[in-house]
């Protein structure tokens, strides 16, 4: 869907991005991660031409982005950013309808689309006529995402969208993004410096440093087969174990052939990292597991976390 070929960007003589080759596949959730100044935001902004690249070519749906009218290009992409950037003088509904207005949709269609998006993002319909300053941070960011999705864009570009939120709200919105991505199958490119966020969201993870890609691949590949010491350090040597566990859900490790145990069951949708925490907190090496609806159906063994995860990767 988006392809960078030998792309460079130079700001006042200093290369911000140099000789970048990158492909964001259709339907993939690509996450660009790196330290401040690694060029990840610049890379994202080159896609919708908020930053113009100096060398190389960038293709969008097979076409060189400069061959398309810039306004049309931008309207085919959703855009959400950290400071949210809701228009403070417009209501929630007007904000969501921004691109629809630009594309001159009919009033009835816009109203229907707003309802649909507010339901998708879990926004109470009563918020329609509120102004952004009357919403909580999490609600604002939901509106920001709804606005970016409004015209059903081919690509969704997100620049540290959850950076300014508290951990609880951020977690909820990350879950929401995963759900929306599964539901809509949109191509998403997200920039973040939060490692756990990147590991949780990405199908395709791109680690950048000094304007170049250090390594790209699935989160699992990055953790288990780091290309060099920088990658190892970046993902935290000491926390490698828990980060690996965070990539998987309880349901993949559950044993269903044992009789149910008493006690508060784990939800099968928790990550193994959360399960590990539960093992330690409850001083137990076997815990019951239930479906998301709370119906117990199996058990999770502490020892399984050790044998399977790391071993599988080592041998594969």
């Amino acid at each position, binding site marked *: 869907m988006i392809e960078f070929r030998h792309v460079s960007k130079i700001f006042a003589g200093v290369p911000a991005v140099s000789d970048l080759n990158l492909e964001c596949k259709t339907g993939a959730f690509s996450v660009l991660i790196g330290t401040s100044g690694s060029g990840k935001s610049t890379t994202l902004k080159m896609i*919708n031409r*908020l930053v113009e690249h100096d060398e190389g070519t960038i293709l969008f749906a097979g076409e060189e982005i400069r061959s398309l009218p*810039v*306004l*049309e*290009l*931008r*309207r085919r*992409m959703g*855009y*959400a*950013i*950290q*400071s*949210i*950037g*809701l*228009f*403070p*003088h*417009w209501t929630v509904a007007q904000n969501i309808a*921004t*691109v629809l207005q*630009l594309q001159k949709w009919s009033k009835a269609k816009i109203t229907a689309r707003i309802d649909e998006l507010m339901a998708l993002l879990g926004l109470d319909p009563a918020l329609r006529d509120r*102004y952004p*300053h009357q919403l909580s941070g999490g609600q604002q960011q939901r509106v920001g995402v709804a*606005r970016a999705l409004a015209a059903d864009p081919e690509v969704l*570009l997100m620049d540290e969208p959850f950076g300014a939120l508290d951990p609880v709200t951020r977690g909820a919105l990350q879950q929401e993004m995963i759900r929306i991505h599964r539901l809509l199958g949109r191509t998403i490119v997200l920039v973040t410096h939060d490692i756990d966020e990147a590991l949780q969201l990405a199908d395709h993870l791109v680690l950048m440093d000094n304007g170049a890609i250090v390594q790209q691949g699935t989160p699992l590949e990055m953790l288990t087969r780091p290309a060099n010491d920088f990658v190892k350090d970046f993902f935290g040597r000491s926390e490698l174990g828990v980060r690996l566990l965070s990539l998987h859900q309880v349901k993949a490790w559950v044993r269903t052939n044992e009789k149910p145990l008493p006690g508060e069951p784990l939800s099968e949708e928790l990550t193994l990292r959360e399960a590990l925490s539960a093992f330690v907190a409850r001083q137990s090496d076997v815990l019951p597991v239930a479906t998301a609806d709370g119906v117990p159906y199996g058990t999770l063994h502490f020892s399984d976390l050790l044998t399977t995860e790391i071993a599988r990767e080592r041998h594969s």
Partner: protein
Amino acid sequence: MNVIRDPLLWLTAAFIALLVLLPHSAGLFSALFPQLPRPLYQQETFIALTLAHFELVGISSLLAIVLGLGAGIIVTRPGGSEFRPLVETIAAVGQTFPPVAVLAIAVPVIGFGKEPAVIALVLYGVLPILQGTLAGMAAVPAGVQDVAKGMGMSDRQRLLKVELPLAAPVIIAGIRTSVIINIGTATIASTVGASTLGTPIIIGLSGFNTAYVIQGAILVALAAIIVDRGFERLAQRFNPHRPAR
């Protein structure tokens, strides 16, 4: 109840009452200033003076708004940013130059009447509007600008739908300052033959007629206060969408 407590209503009523009652107040002023042979300004009606005054203020403020807002918009566009220091300097010079001096220079060139007064008032009024426009534009959050651009708004759409509405409260504050100064300053236009509420003041000053000065000054002051309250009302109308600061 709220309508009755509204100061704007009372001030306007007081102004109209003054316009109606002043022509009948000869007795009052002769009691206050017994030494004056003619204690009430009667060459023109106060209503005519007020209308002329507001015409002068209206024309010059409108021109100042067009110039100040226009220049402010142009120099905040990417293509016009190079002219920003120049425009700011010219506007600052315009305000530093005393309007009386502008009148003194303009009259020999274009003659007596309203025109030199308009020039002086416009020059004097542009700076606050320009500054308000620049400050208002600068206060539009960078994130909002970024998103507006990223969502595919054209330059014109960004200006009209995002920047100007968000900058409006600050721009209106600048216009408010400019117009209020203008109402007071317009009185000196009477020195070059324009008819304004300053006419009784100027005649009163040159003829040692304190009563004339008071009659003109009260009306000008009240007019300025009324317009100021009116602008406050306008500013409130633009404000409810913005977070309380």
